[in-house]
């Protein structure tokens, strides 16, 4: 696994992905057309495209709205998650007392909270971001903690012998060591935060991809439903891909990613 291999692999994999999607789209279009599947069972990609083209504003504003909710929730989850991880690694007692509660909190179906969160925070963008945050902070906390605990004690001793403060140790040694682990969690969190935003919108809102999904379901509008699914897919894959790209740039010294 040389780094040149890993780097040259990225565009090729992306190209293969795009090609794959294009081929799937074509086969889909052809199959539905050839087998004469009614569009209320399975619409053609071209029908979805024209549905989006007919009311581009609804999709665009829904896309942007959900994007903002997702990003706020993700950013808050990432910051709190990394902060928690650092605190837990510094204060053992705190970790022993609070970490099990975090684990239990993740077995709670967040969605059940949806109604409560909307009640607490009002029917605002904040409520959706809070749900996205709740799904995001835990994996980041866990991986930060695991990464920080994997720091080589000899390197810590060396830095300390140079008179490094606790803060310097954290910034110069511990966090960089934990970075690969943290990024694995951030990639996972990118998908989870989108789930949180979409589900949050189900508890009452007027714009957003989750709203589009729900409205299409109630109207049994199969074309619109698929268009909304594909819009969510676009948002999800783009966000995930961007995170993977940032990961490669930031964690450049790791070439087996």
């Amino acid at each position: 696994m040389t780094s040149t291999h890993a780097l040259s692999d990225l565009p090729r994999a992306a190209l293969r992905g795009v090609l794959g999607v294009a081929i799937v789209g074509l086969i889909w279009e052809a199959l539905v057309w050839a087998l004469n599947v009614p569009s209320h069972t399975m619409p053609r990609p071209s029908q979805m495209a024209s549905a989006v083209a007919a009311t581009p504003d609804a999709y665009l504003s829904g896309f942007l709205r959900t994007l903002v909710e997702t990003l706020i929730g993700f950013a808050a989850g990432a910051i709190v998650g990394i902060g928690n991880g650092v605190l837990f690694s510094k204060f053992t007692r705190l970790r022993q007392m609070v970490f099990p509660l975090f684990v239990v909190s993740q077995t709670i179906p967040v969605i059940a909270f949806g109604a409560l969160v909307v009640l607490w925070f009002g029917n605002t963008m904040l409520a959706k971001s809070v749900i996205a945050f709740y799904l995001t902070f835990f994996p980041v906390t866990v991986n930060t903690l695991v990464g920080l605990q994997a720091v080589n004690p000899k390197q810590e001793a060396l830095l300390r012998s140079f008179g490094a403060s606790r803060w310097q140790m954290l910034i110069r040694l511990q966090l960089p060591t934990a970075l690969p682990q943290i990024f694995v969690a951030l990639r996972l969190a990118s998908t989870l935060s989108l789930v949180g935003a979409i589900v949050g919108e189900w508890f009452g809102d007027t714009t957003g991809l989750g709203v589009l999904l729900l409205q299409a379901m109630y109207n049994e509008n199969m074309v619109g439903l698929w268009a909304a699914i594909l819009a969510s897919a676009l948002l999800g894959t783009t966000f995930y891909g961007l995170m993977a790209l940032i990961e490669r740039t930031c964690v450049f010294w790791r070439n087996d990613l």
Partner: protein
Amino acid sequence: MKSRSWQSADVYWGVAGAVLLVVLWEGAVRAFDLPAYILPGILEILVSMVDLQSTLMDATWMTVMEAVSGYVIGSACGILLAVILTLIPTLKRWCLPAAIAINSVPVVAYAPLVLLWFGMGAESKIVMVSLAVGFTVFLSALTGLDQANRKSIDLLRSFGANPLMIIWRLKLPAALPLIASAMRVSTTRSMIVAIVTEMLGAYGGLGWVIYQATLQIDFVQVWAAIFAASLVSLIFFGAVSMIERKVIFWR
């Protein structure tokens, strides 16, 4: 690391943390006289769980059946698909980027579609859970199957083992830890997906109970259902973790 996390001091402080939370929760509710729609007291929730015993039992049973069926189907399909793709490398090269792309689509986005296709009954929930679990297990299994030692593969091949035997004897055991950790994470996820799908449309189950209670603005009942769901998720998670430790004894 794993064994250390079960030291008695950890258990002791963990219990202390839980007790502290309960005291803080109940204390805050009493001190600030919080109305039930903001936060009901823990005692009140427990009492309501006893009162609603039969409703909650029926709903929990239904949700658990859906989650477990979907979990089993999804895990089996995920592992099987990973084995097939490992046997046919060309297929894998084309499918893997597509699979990663599909996996980064939020699974809940499919829920409305699955409900329209499979109806309001248990089928749609089982399909949703198998989708969510299947993808997680599939991607982990695929990574795990790749991790077998190159030299061991060559050795087995020199003994005349065919690709199927290499998978069964070497690659699958090597992949087991990764598959198991994916299946452990999937336990709580399967409960969550079942409940979400129930909230969108169902004839019963915990998600349905939560939805109905929300409509009736009965937030104590919402919390009672949340407690029931968490309890069952914890048991499911614990059971799978225990099986994992038994099966992967070499870890």
